[in-house]
């Protein structure tokens, strides 16, 4: 148990010390909630480097390397700007939360396992072998990726088959970040009481979402994807709209590591990058977001999957590896070009053009094979209202999203609206690029991936409550 706690603490401290580099714009409280996911992201990027370039993964050495790098970053930051009481306090809070979470996860053993989980756990055993990527199932390399196996490889250090604490850690830190974001985006917009009621009910809404809570204990990639997408989208908005440009660094790291969690992640990343391309982001923000994605994209898709995955070197627009590389490359080029002065007036429409293109592609797919769409619609409807165990979560969220999209006047709103609409379109397009229509049942991937977008959607709902035409008048605060 002590070893598993040590791993949790190691990842948290790694994230904390690395995040000292962004102290100027990211508050100590925010860094506390970012520490575990950012530490894990740094570990994952180091793991990808090790697996692709060395061929194997030594989890202990990789974690120590990340910790060492973080300590160097922290040392430079402290020498330059000194150390603040807040920094130490919030870091200790983060470590304390990691310890308590790991302790609770091990004490009560809340893990949920399915055969899907088993494939990830088996893959984690493979990655630590001499030729880890060759040992791992070649199809699983694409369909399951190495994000979760690489994280679960840390269990190798403690002599267990899997880490029970991993999911709960992402769940708790993700929830903390959600609460921090909800408080942050409503700051100064509402009276204290109304603000706390709004934030409190939003947190309660998230906590009552059966599938999202389930994902915190389920060995699969969903809670990680939900956490990282929240960091990516919220971080970009804070960097662009609030002028807190250093938020782009954790945001870029989070976006990059989604690439090693899910096969559809390159398309999700492309949507987010095209949003950045059309935004007011300066070149520094763009580079901070792009560089980790390019590094992970080249290493993992270009070198790792291309060489080891089943059909990895197939050249076709719909091939999982080649198509993903093209999507990432196009989005990166647009993102860079959009920052150039002369292109900017045109670039500001790129995100809308991207969404329109995605909608047209979906329309083409539907026209080509309407059966897949109708079956997906039926399965999704049944999953959302009953069979997917979402209870009222999405029924309410979708209705509220429609209203929020109409009334919102959020500054730089498209950083939120384009990804949310883009993810929705992608959801309907994905059945055409996988094996078929979404199916009825909580276990279908269509039902499971809905968890990735819930926290992002909910923060948008909260933002829309404080930035809409109805709250433009002076009496808005008291009317809530």
């Amino acid at each position, binding site marked *: 148990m002590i070893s598993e706690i040590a791993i949790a603490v190691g990842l948290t401290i790694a994230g904390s010390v690395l995040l000292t580099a962004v102290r100027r714009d990211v508050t100590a409280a925010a860094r506390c909630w970012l520490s575990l996911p950012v530490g894990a992201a740094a570990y994952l990027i180091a793991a990808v480097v090790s697996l692709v370039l060395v061929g194997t993964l030594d989890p202990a050495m990789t974690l120590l390397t990340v910790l060492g790098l973080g300590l160097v970053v922290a040392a430079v930051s402290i020498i330059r700007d000194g150390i603040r009481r807040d920094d130490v306090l919030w870091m200790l809070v983060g470590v304390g939360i990691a310890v308590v979470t790991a302790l609770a996860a091990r004490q009560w053993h809340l893990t949920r396992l399915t055969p899907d989980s088993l494939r990830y756990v088996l893959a984690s055993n493979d990655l630590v072998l001499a030729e880890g990527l060759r040992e791992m199932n070649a199809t699983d390399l694409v369909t399951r990726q190495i994000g979760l196996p690489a994280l679960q490889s840390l269990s190798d250090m403690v002599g267990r088959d899997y880490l029970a604490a991993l999911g709960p850690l992402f769940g708790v830190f993700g929830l903390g970040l959600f609460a921090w974001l909800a408080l942050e985006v409503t700051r100064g917009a509402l009276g204290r009481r109304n603000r706390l009621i709004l934030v409190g009910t939003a947190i309660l809404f998230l906590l009552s979402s059966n599938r999202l809570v389930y994902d915190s204990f389920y060995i699969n990639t969903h809670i990680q994807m939900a956490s990282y997408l929240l960091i990516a989208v919220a971080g970009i908005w804070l960097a662009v709209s609030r002028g807190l440009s250093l938020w782009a660094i954790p945001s870029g790291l989070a976006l990059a590591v989604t690439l090693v969690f899910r096969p559809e992640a390159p398309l999700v990343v492309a949507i987010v990058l095209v949003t950045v391309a059309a935004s007011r982001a300066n070149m520094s923000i763009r580079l901070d977001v792009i560089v980790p994605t390019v590094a992970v994209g080249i290493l993992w898709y270009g070198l790792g999957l291309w060489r080891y995955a089943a059909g990895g070197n197939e050249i076709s627009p719909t091939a999982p590896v080649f198509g993903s590389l093209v999507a990432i490359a196009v989005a990166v080029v647009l993102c860079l070009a959009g920052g150039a002065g002369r292109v900017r007036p045109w670039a500001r429409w790129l995100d809308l053009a991207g969404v329109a293109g995605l909608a047209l592609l979906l329309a083409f797919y539907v026209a080509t094979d309407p059966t897949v769409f109708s079956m997906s619609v039926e399965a999704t409807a049944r999953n959302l209202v009953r069979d997917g165990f979402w209870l009222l979560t999405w029924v309410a969220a979708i209705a509220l999203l429609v209203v929020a999209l109409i009334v919102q006047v959020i500054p730089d709103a498209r950083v939120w609206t384009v990804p949310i609409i883009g993810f929705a379109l992608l959801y309907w397009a994905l059945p055409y690029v996988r094996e078929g229509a979404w199916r009825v*049942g909580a276990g279908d991937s269509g039902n499971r991936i809905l968890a990735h977008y819930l926290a992002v959607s909910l923060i948008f709902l909260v933002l829309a409550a404080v930035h809409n035409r109805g709250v433009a008048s002076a009496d808005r605060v008291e009317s809530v």
Partner: protein
Amino acid sequence: MPKPDHPRAWRQRLGTVYTRYLPAALGLTAVVNLALTPFLPGSAAPIRTHRDGSLTELVHTEQRAVDRRFGFYMELDDATNGGTLIVPMGSFVNAELAEGFASFDVVELDYDPAAGATGVPEVPEQWLVETESGDLVFSIIPGNDDLWWLAERPNGDVVVVPDSVAPAPVSP
């Protein structure tokens, strides 16, 4: 601020309503969600204790040599269902390995579709099977190519279930 007959006025009013009632909508949804959660099937429970937190090796060392990656199982819901076993066949099953198991006794299975409704984790390709005595529940997963069925007895014996005995696949 737009006048009442201005095209944007209705959006303004809608915005006011949205801001005023969003907490109520979120809170009410959460309360209903929490109230309905106990009525979900057991497999939907976000929190379920798991006996020992470890995967147990199913096959012997020499059999692992056939396919090192095959041979783990997980135990789920033992407190609730008296032993629901997941045997991960997937693409790892092969005839040579299965032959090794064939020396075990084959258990007679009496498939009870109703049993499939209890405690099935969220795996489409998975079915619950109950023995005739009704005191043991197996979870059996077919291989990707050849349809092999494995089951495990309470004493740890692993058996290959022939097609003639195995139940017809029923989606959960």
